[in-house]
């Protein structure tokens, strides 16, 4: 167990990325172990989302490595990258990005079904996760859920494939007040409850304060942020 904890699940080294000669990420390094959480903060336009896209493999860095679960994803083919993402990564987007025509259970079960899990098991697991995360009526139309419930459903969807690494992009950006606190508390409790690593990109200092470590992205470089 100790060995797993010590060995980072996510390891970023020498990551550089720029657009049109303008550097966005400069020689960026980062390590994140299972059961640990990191919050990346920074002003608008500092490259937080670009960093997240590099971790998802949606952009190819100019140089450097992004190692997830022991594999450098920058060297993977598109097919292998998709398979690796499916096996190890879960994502929560800012606006939940759920299909309003489907029920919450169906929304949560989608990644599992696409990954080949049997229908019964996928729906059972989805219902269990939703109950766990406090989404009240699993068969309520998704369009009828509150903002906080939709975001918790998105968290459940990210968790259903039991990913080692969970990425969250401004997960509370569309929420305020109690809903924001509930979702933030829930997210940062996940590494302990599910043994996964969590990286949250946020500009909300109050949300970032819940992380084990806080990093600030500025001028394309990551630095430890003041608590």
């Amino acid at each position, binding site marked *: 167990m100790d060995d797993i904890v010590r060995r980072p699940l996510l390891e970023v080294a020498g990551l550089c990325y720029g657009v049109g000669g303008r550097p966005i990420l400069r020689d960026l390094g980062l390590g994140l172990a299972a059961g640990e959480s990191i919050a990346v903060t920074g002003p*608008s*336009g*500092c*490259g*937080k*989302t*670009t960093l*997240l*896209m590099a971790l*998802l493999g*949606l952009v190819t860095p100019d140089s450097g490595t992004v190692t997830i679960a022991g594999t450098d994803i920058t060297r993977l083919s598109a097919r292998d*990258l*998709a*398979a690796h*993402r*499916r096996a190890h*990564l*879960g*994502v929560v*987007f*800012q606006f939940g*990005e759920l*299909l*309003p*025509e*489907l029920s919450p259970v*169906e929304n949560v*079960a*989608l*990644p599992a*079904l*696409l*990954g080949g*899990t*049997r*229908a*019964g098991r*996928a*729906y059972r697991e989805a219902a269990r996760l939703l109950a766990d995360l406090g989404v009240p009526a699993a068969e309520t139309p998704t369009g009828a859920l509150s903002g906080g419930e939709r975001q918790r459903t998105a968290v459940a*969807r*990210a968790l259903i494939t039991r990913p080692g690494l969970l990425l969250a*992009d*401004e997960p509370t*950006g569309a929420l305020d007040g109690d809903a924001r606190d509930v979702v933030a508390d829930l997210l940062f409790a996940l590494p302990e409850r599910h043994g996964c690593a969590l990286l949250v*990109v946020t500009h909300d200092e109050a949300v970032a304060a819940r992380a084990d470590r806080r990093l600030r992205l500025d001028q394309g470089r990551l630095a430890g942020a003041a608590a």
Partner: protein
Amino acid sequence: MSRAGLSRQLLHIGRAAGKGSRGDRVRYVALLTAAFVLALSALAGLGVAASYAGRDARDRARATDEVTAGQRATVLWRPKYDAVGDRQHQVIFIAPLSPTAAPPPGLPRWPAPGEAFLSPELARAGAAEHIATRYGRPAGTIAPAGLASPTERLAYVRPARVDVRSDEWFRTPGFGRADPARLGESADVRPMAQFLLALGGLVVLPAAALVVIAARCGSAGRDRRTALLQALGGGRRHRALVNCGEAIVPLTLGALLGTLPYLAAMIHDVRLPFVGYLVPSADLRAYAAWTPVVTVAAIAVALALVVGLHRVDRTGRSTRPRSFADSVPRWRLWLCAAMAAMFGASGYVRGMAGTWLYAVGTVGLWATVPSLAAVAGRGLGARLAAVGRRRGRVSPLVAGRWMVAHPGVMVRLATAVIIGAGLVSQTQTWVSRLNTPALEARASVARIGDTVVRVDAADLRPDRTAAFARALPPGFTVLGLHESEGGGSPVLSANCRTLRGLGLPCTARPAAVAPSGADDPRVRELSRWTGSSGDPMRVVGTDGAGARPAGRPSALVVFADPARRGESWRVRQAAYAAFDWPRTERLGELWLTGLMRNVAMGQWVLLLGTAGLVILMLAAAVSAVAEFLRFGPALAPVGVQSGKQRIFVFVALWNLTFPMAVATVVGVAVASWHGLYFIATSHDGHFSWTVMGVAAAVGGCLALLVGLTGGLSAIRAARRWRPAGD
């Protein structure tokens, strides 16, 4: 910035904005296709005008007038009718009276006595009937200058013997008349205004609808842009320039592509499907200067539609195609059922009332079908989603839920397919309708083919009749037919050997032969066509005991042995060789050739209707793909997480191809039932499974194309999707 500089800049902005927007390729292709169709259909209108102008000029050049007092006749002229297959054509007998008389337009010289010039189309169509030698020795073909159109079937014949004193001839001072009587093909042509109206309604209007749908393709982004431009102080002109900049390239390209088929038709005569009409390239060339004008006008109209459809929405409500969130009112379904019942009842009601029931039922059924399609679409979607959910299949689950939430996509597709199949089937069925004599003529042809031919001529002298009989090979028997002007049934006369060979009695006094009393099927048919039930055809022997000379017959009837079936051309050839301007016809032929004129008109409606329906189906398909593009980004996050992009194609196949394929099957089945029911109750017309097969194949291919285009476009849209949390 100067006004011109700003305009250029705004056009440039529009072009750049179009490239980066969601569904840009779909809209580009949609606009290009729409401009192609609009330009081509507008050019078709130009082609119609050019063809009519050319036809009028040639009609005037070849028309003749009878000589009036003080004029000198230089030409003998007499038009008659003949047929190849079931299509009638004109045979114009001519002879010069003066060595300086000019031949008819299109002929390089006067045909020598016993020679004939044929139009290329008549020579082609009549090749199997040896038309080249029917009217005499072939002298050549009539040049386009002498024909109303390249499709005209026409012959100029100079008889071997010309009796210049005969009253049968028209005497004319020559060819050319300002106000011509319509000859040949022109006699059957509808006025240009009617044709243009049909083209406009059936083709140009659907083309304009396609432009509208293509212009509004992915309109949400552009509506926001238009509002933004207004907020920034942009006026109507500025917004129009941005929209023009975005659309002008695909519209121009599409319109230019649309001119290519027209340019090809200007080089060669192109044969149109269904109607077999050859578009006269020379006429199109004569109007060549109008081609760029019409093309630019088509681009201008399309641009005006694009600009006009992107005005600022002052009410603040989007003008996007709205999705069908409300349930379909029940009364519409009852109305649909009532219309179906009205159509069903029409088969049992005779006269005008039945026709009205049929017309109202049919139009009403088609008008209310979209409501039914919406209900069916929702039901289908719910079942599909249930199956997907039960089996854990994501594509049918998502597609089914979308069908329930947005049935409009499917309704538009299904309506186009169902109405398309219905219209095509109905037009085909109506075109195939026959009147009672034509129905009997077709039945006669089915029973005996062309083994009985009637020959009418003014000069049935015994020597000529004998020459005619000698010219026929063994297997043909010639009989006389005597029709008295004072009434009474016609009498068939022949020697006893011939009569007995046909199973007929040989008596000195005419004996009645009713159709039921004849053993030989050819005699039965002749009796049907020449006698009546109360006054049947009679037969008399010319060489039996007590026989009296029958006198000169008013017509001849030629019986061919069954082995000679399909060789009636020999009879026609021999008749033209032996007699002056004979008229030859198979039993009932006049009814069939008369019918073909209506059929030809129906085929034009079928051609224009089919073109219009293909355009409408294209419009529905473009609209469906455009709406599907809105779904692409919704699935993108799941696609990113799962890495499975094939889901987009599968969802598109379920969401677009599957319902459209179902609509095609249902549409073809309903249209087939509709057509067959009509035929069964009216005992008339015939149903073309080929037409239905083509409709099904077009629907199926379009369904697959729409699904794949939607899926691949959604993949492209999803690839561009990025989490936008920064």
